[in-house]
């Protein structure tokens, strides 16, 4: 049972990681809390679902969902955040919250208030050893998350653009004086982060077989807690925090059987970390 719960928890944590990464990357470079990121996540699920219904192939729908989210993320940066960057950070935050609410309503109007099903067969098959089962969708989630993390790591450490991205996160002005095109780097940042959120939306859509207009509501605030937990802007810290929250939720429910709502776990952890390690799990002062 422990093994099974471990699989359940890591799968959930992986999805949290995919959603939170974009958020932490945006914060790292722009110092904006990008609440509408959860709207991009839902958008990814809907685009993936509708392209799945058109094309009938899961992998294609995953890629289209990611691409659609990436474009949406880029447009949000270009037309909403970019013109507001000279204002105090509260201005883009308000815009972001407003946009998130508008997106939820838009999904409801376009796709209807009902839960839609994302009934895709991936074609990997379940893995079962004794009473332990790693379901097809769990394998899928682990695989996609792992691939995304490897890609991100390689990109950030092995390429010049990645280096520029890290430089911008540390100090955008200095990076700019060294000839880094900060605007382009910000755009790349949003494209990547949003594509990952889109992937998370598609994965959850398939994992739960449900896509609905307000599916971003809980990730919207849980991802914020995870990002703070990981140390704002800290990528390895965010991944660690996300997996940790996924596991903690699963263990509280499934092993300790403590009847408190799972969504509280991330916030309790956040409060504890802020009390004892105010810069996050891996953050530096």
């Amino acid at each position, binding site marked *: *049972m422990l093994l*099974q*719960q471990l699989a*359940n*928890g890591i799968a*959930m944590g992986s999805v949290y990681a995919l959603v939170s990464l974009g958020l932490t990357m945006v914060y790292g470079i722009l110092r904006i809390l990008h609440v509408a990121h959860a709207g991009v996540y839902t958008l990814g699920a809907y685009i993936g679902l509708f392209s799945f219904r058109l094309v009938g192939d899961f992998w294609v729908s995953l890629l289209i969902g990611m691409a659609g989210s990436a474009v949406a993320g880029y447009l949000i940066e270009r037309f909403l955040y970019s013109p507001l960057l000279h204002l105090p950070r509260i201005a883009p935050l308000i815009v972001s919250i407003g946009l998130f609410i508008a997106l939820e309503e838009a999904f409801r109007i376009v796709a*209807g*208030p*009902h*839960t839609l*099903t994302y*009934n895709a067969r991936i074609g990997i098959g*379940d893995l*079962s050893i004794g*009473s332990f*089962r790693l*379901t097809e*969708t769990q394998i899928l989630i682990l695989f996609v998350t792992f691939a995304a993390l490897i890609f991100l790591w390689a990109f950030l450490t092995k390429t010049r653009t990645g280096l520029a991205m890290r430089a911008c996160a540390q100090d955008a002005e200095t990076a700019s004086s060294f000839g880094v095109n900060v605007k382009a780097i910000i755009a790349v940042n949003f494209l990547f982060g949003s594509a990952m959120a889109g992937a998370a939306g598609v994965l*959850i859509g398939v*994992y*739960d*077989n*449900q896509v609905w207009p*307000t599916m971003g509501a*809980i990730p919207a605030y849980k991802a914020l807690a995870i990002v703070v937990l990981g140390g704002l802007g800290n990528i390895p810290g965010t991944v660690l925090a996300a997996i940790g929250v996924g596991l903690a*939720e*699963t*263990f509280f*429910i*499934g*092993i300790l*059987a403590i*009847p408190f*709502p*799972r*969504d509280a776990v991330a916030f309790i952890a956040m409060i504890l970390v802020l009390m004892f390690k105010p810069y996050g799990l891996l953050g530096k002062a």
Partner: protein
Amino acid sequence: MRRLRLVGIVFGFSAFLLFFIAGLGQAQDTIKIGFFAPITGPAAADGMSAKHAVELGLKEVNDAGGIKGKKVELITYDDRLNPQEAVAIANKLLERDKVVGVVSGSYSGPTRVTAPIFQKAGMPMVAGYAVHPDVTWDPTQKKPNDFIFRNGYLGEVEGAAAAEFAVKNLKAKKISIISMDNDFGRAISAGFAARAEKLGSAILTKQMYKFPGEKDFRPFLTRIKEGNPDLIFAAGYYNEGASIVRQAKELGITAQILGEEGFDSPKFLEIAGPAAEGVIIATNLDRDDPRPVVQNFLSNYRKAYNEDADMVGASSYDAFMILVNAIAKVGTDPKAIQKALLETKDYNGLTGMISRFIQGEVVKPVQIQVVKGGKFRRLAVIDNPEVITPPTKQ
């Protein structure tokens, strides 16, 4: 010029007057019945079912000549599953629309806040499927809301009936319970547990999940699997129910899953897919009931809306028809309607033969249905009076 203007005013005024008189005339010609349901929002699928079914009932009544020659007019409102909205609707129905009776096609939240308003105004209301005890009961005065009647079961009654079936028919000895943490989930799982334990079965685990919001039931189900129960009693609405049966199947759980009326929706079958096969539910509609009232409703509903009717629709239809039936007997005086409802005896309802109302609570058999070939089919009917008689409140 001046004269022209005067003529204009006179014309305008008479047009207004005519319109007003026509309006009055119409008001006298029809019998107005109020109706509210969550037509948009998180429970939109149920709200639409209720609306569709009641409109079908309305059409039947009016096609048959209305009530004593008068057409019935349905005043419909969308409460969006929002109690504040429902309060405003109740006041509108009373003050502006001047209805003679009200049908609730909504959940407990909106229905229970309107109950004291209608009770105070002496306006009879029949609730289709709202389950909260305080719909028919005033907890502050500790007396029944005697203008409010309920066509659905109390959570405790339905839970007890499910347990009766689980233990007596399925011979389940070891049972795990997973339930949503709201009024309905708590009431139905408490009723289930009490009856199952009384009949000698053991409750291995009893877990509550957050409602609304929970989608990942794997941690709960993995824990249930560890205890290897004969049966899992699961309480939730169609989204939760579908996720539970689907994820249980994925985890390789073979125990029989027994759900309740919240599962009784085409959406459940759609989301759960093949995993729904063999799932048993306790509910308020028997699709295989041979009585014409049932079979006509099912086929007319399919013809009108091109989808299968569900429990919510059937219960709302019944609520509407119970009210219409009372008006047909005694006329449009709310007090007389209430008296007629109180005296209901052996009413041939779509969702079962209603023997009577006790403190506003319906007394009728509970239906046990099973999913077979992607449809709900009859499996059993629980009519043990010890189980289906609602407890007297004091």
